[in-house]
């Protein structure tokens, strides 16, 4: 489980996170949602240590990450897989080399074992046989799946996905969502997903954290988010006309 307690983060005079506390449960898809500019990505970057928190504690299964120096943090980071918004694949490397990279860096596996692991990961994201392609030769959806394959190569305990559906068509989004859900349950990973996409939230969100004005405004599961009467959440969830109609239908049925 990942826990953040009373964290604050400012950039100059702009206070982004305000005394925010939350916990992300093991074996579940934890979703951080909220409008743009509310601090979702900053929160995720604070959790993985790409941003330093000004105050507060980030802990991974009881290990206080905030107190560790960079070298000690690297040990915890080896247990983290991260899918970036733009996939962040190494563009000078092939798909195979991208996925093999953390294995080469941190394990003593033989070339054959590494290749087996790469093929397993590619198979897991339905991209078998795409080993020799360069990232530039892959579509956006493929790049996201390669990003997931690279993230799970080291059998991580924690998986972070920053807007995994951005720039993807609805069908590919569903594929990515299902993949994240399956991997989370299959490997019992603590998954944290940052998303704007309400379809994803309803589809895969086990534990949903709504960030508003830099605070943990609301916390619940996918069933309770639909029924809540919290104004800020309703403004966010039912922002589109389509979702508004669904809400009316649900209210009629109730």
């Amino acid at each position: 489980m990942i826990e953040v307690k009373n964290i604050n983060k400012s950039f100059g005079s702009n206070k982004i996170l305000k005394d925010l506390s939350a916990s992300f449960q093991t074996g579940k898809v934890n979703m951080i949602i909220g409008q743009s500019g509310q601090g979702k990505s900053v929160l995720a970057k604070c959790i993985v240590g790409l941003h330093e928190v000004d105050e507060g504690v980030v802990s991974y299964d009881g290990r206080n990450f905030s107190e560790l120096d960079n070298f000690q943090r690297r040990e915890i980071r080896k247990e983290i897989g991260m899918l970036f918004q733009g996939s962040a694949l190494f563009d000078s490397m092939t798909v195979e080399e991208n996925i093999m990279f953390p294995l080469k860096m941190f394990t003593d596996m033989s070339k054959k074992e590494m290749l087996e692991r790469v093929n397993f990961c590619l198979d897991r994201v339905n991209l078998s046989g795409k080993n020799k392609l360069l990232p530039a030769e892959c579509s956006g959806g493929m790049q996201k799946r390669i990003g997931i394959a690279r993230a799970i190569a080291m059998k991580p305990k924690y998986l972070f996905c920053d807007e995994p559906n951005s720039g993807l068509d609805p069908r590919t989004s569903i594929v990515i969502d299902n993949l994240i859900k399956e991997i989370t349950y299959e490997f019992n990973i603590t998954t944290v997903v940052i998303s704007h996409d309400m379809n994803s939230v309803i589809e895969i969100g086990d534990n949903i954290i709504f960030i508003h004005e830099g605070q943990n405004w609301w916390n619940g599961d996918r069933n309770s988010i639909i029924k809540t009467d919290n104004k800020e959440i309703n403004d966010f969830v039912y922002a589109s006309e389509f979702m508004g109609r669904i809400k009316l239908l649900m209210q009629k049925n109730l």
Partner: protein
Amino acid sequence: MKVLVNIGKYFMMLGIVFSKPEKWKIFRVRLFNEIEAIGIKSLPIVTILSVFMGAVISLQTASNMDSPLLPEYTIGFITRSSTILEFSPTILSLILAGKIGSNIASEIGTMRVTEQIDALETMGVNSLSYLVLPKLSAAVLFFPIITIYSIVLSLIGGWIAIISSNLSTTETYVLGLRSFFVLGNIGYALVKTVVFAFVIVSISSFYGYYTKGGALDVGRSSTQAVVISSIVILICNFFLTQMILL
């Protein structure tokens, strides 16, 4: 104030760069890749520049020798001295600062804005050491070889220009090259080269690594890297000359 902050950040960066590589095997592979990218791929431009600069130095020297009191071997002597003392270590480094410096800053800068550096960090990789140390080592190891190569080609360029223009004979030119030769000057040139190699790669990596924003900012970082590297090279050149030659 910003300058002081950047100087502090630069030295802190160097502290992280010089930490032990995660795996020596990977470092070795990256080192050879960088020797190819920084060193071998610079050889064509170094060849062209050296031959023509050597030729121009010898022709200019010959055209300025108005006094009959000046011996003819002065052409070879001046060509050798200018090449060893200034052209091959300094002017060539300034030119390579443009070629290699902009390349390094834009490569690392692009990795920064496309979150590839963040990806390395979240994996637990020391991104600075992984990206910069092989480049720094390759440049420091290979720049002296480039300098020696450039000196030789420059002297050959001078000889070709003098002979083809009938301004002197091969014997006289060679006599000039051998006259009043100070071996220490080669050492001076190599020390300068190593310092300039370090300056070019470390400053360019610094500007690339701390790029913020998008494509425009990568371009800006690349320009800054070349400008600042060139200025620092000139300042170092002055102090090294004072320390070693005087």
